[in-house]
């Protein structure tokens, strides 16, 4: 369902963030991408959903090469989760979740914060999935870090994506909240057959929750194997 071919990314400051990255992803896989800071993990995820323009190489999503023209369609089918949650703090949980539907909402009505009853019910369903239905009308700045990340996940899954891009989703959380968030992602992966690409720093979480682990270092893939082989590969990454 996703194919990355020879993806390269150079920034204006001379950084070569990606140096010809290629790999394929099957529907329903949970893939963790491990690598030191600055290895290109975030750039890779951002290139898939258009936050970084693709200049060299190609990304094929659902048998279609991602271009500027079909990017809105790709964005409808992908959700993104961020390390710092990226929520609008003085909005309620439900309004934050509803922003995930802006792409498919009436441009005029959504500007006035008007959504259909079905859309609101979908938002409530997403909040129920992440276990925060009772916090639907709380402002997100009144929630804990773990709860905020759950709202971020609810926002990402409301549009029923087939691919979730999680950029270090547990890096800002304490170990307990991190574990709980990873369990939630795994549940979403299994229950809804949503493919997950998850940038991580924690090898134990990658081993426990992933089907496959890709090791990225200095913009290149160092290894790409099943999670059970991570222990033998991990030294290659940080050596």
């Amino acid at each position, binding site marked *: 369902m996703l194919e990355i071919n020879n993806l390269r990314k150079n920034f204006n400051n001379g950084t070569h963030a990606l140096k010809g990255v290629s790999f394929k992803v099957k529907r329903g896989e949970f893939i963790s991408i491990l690598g030191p800071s600055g290895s290109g993990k975030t750039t890779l995820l951002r290139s898939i*959903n*258009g*936050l970084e323009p693709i200049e060299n190489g190609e990304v094929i999503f659902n048998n279609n090469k991602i271009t500027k023209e079909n*990017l*809105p369609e790709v*964005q*409808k089918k*992908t*959700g*993104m989760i*961020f390390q*710092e*949650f*990226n*929520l*609008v*703090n*003085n*909005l309620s949980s439900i*309004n934050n979740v509803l*922003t*995930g539907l*802006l*792409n498919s*909402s009436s*441009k005029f009505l*959504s*500007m006035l*914060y008007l959504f259909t009853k079905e859309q609101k019910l979908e938002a409530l369903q997403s909040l129920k999935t992440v276990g925060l239905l009772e916090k639907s009308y709380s*402002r997100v*700045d009144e929630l804990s870090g773990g709860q905020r990340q759950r709202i*971020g996940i609810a*926002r990402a899954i409301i*549009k029923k994506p087939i691919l979730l891009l999680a950029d270090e989703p547990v890096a800002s959380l304490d170990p307990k909240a991190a574990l709980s968030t990873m369990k939630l992602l795994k549940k979403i992966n299994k229950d809804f057959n949503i493919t997950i690409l998850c940038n991580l720093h924690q090898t134990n979480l990658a081993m426990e929750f992933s089907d496959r682990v890709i090791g990225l270092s200095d913009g290149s893939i160092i290894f790409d194997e099943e999670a059970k082989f991570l222990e033998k590969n991990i030294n290659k990454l940080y050596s």
Partner: protein
Amino acid sequence: MNNKNIFKLTENNPKENLEKYLRPQWSWKTIIFIISTIVLLTVVTIDLEINFINLFTDFFKYFADILSRMLPPDFSNFNELVYSMIETIEIAILGTFIAIVLSIPLALLSAKNIAPNIVIFFIARTITVFFRAIPEFIIAMILVIAIGFGAMPGVLALGIHTMGFLAKFYAEDIEHINKGPVEALRSSGASKRQIIAFAVIPQIIPSFVANNLYILDRNIRMATMLGIVGAGGIGYELQSAFRMFEYPKVSAIIIIIFITIYIIDNLSSYIRSKIK
């Protein structure tokens, strides 16, 4: 030099080796700034022929003289004065409303991070600077000539002048928003207008309300002065009282202005404290 080396040098000859790390408490920049400020203030005082010694010695004499003429305050036309004060507040409210309405689009066009392009950004910024640069007093004088005496020139003068201020405040707030939510909405394919509605505006709402209250507070104070050039309100009463040498009436007007500003100042502080 690492810490280990410093310790070694200290052990051998502490003073000699550490003295080279000493720096003067006041840098040469601080000294130049202080000297420059003193020179500037001296030059300005000489140029304006101000004698501070006379000013301080005669202060009590002048103060006692003016106070004796102003007291007791004359509240004989209290109802008229209160009506004029209400008119002043109305002028300020309407002027602030006009300023808010005009400044929102101007701010969206003059915020660097969301302006459509550099040309529009530059034009919008120039407009905000232009209207900020012309005091409302001058705008009111021009408008009194153009459309005659009354509340209208006051309302427009306040609206046009403070539009420049509010547009600048809003634009600065927009430029300093957390970019995370903007990025999240971009990643889900939201349009630019949707991003402004959901990721930009909610972030600036607390300071938006606080800035509007501040400008309303300021406009009420300024509106009291605009009457002096014929733009309506209690300022007109103040000017008339001065012209007729009715100093007890002047003090009554000042007391009414003070009480009004005091109430509004506390009210706006209370509302600002409640906004998150």
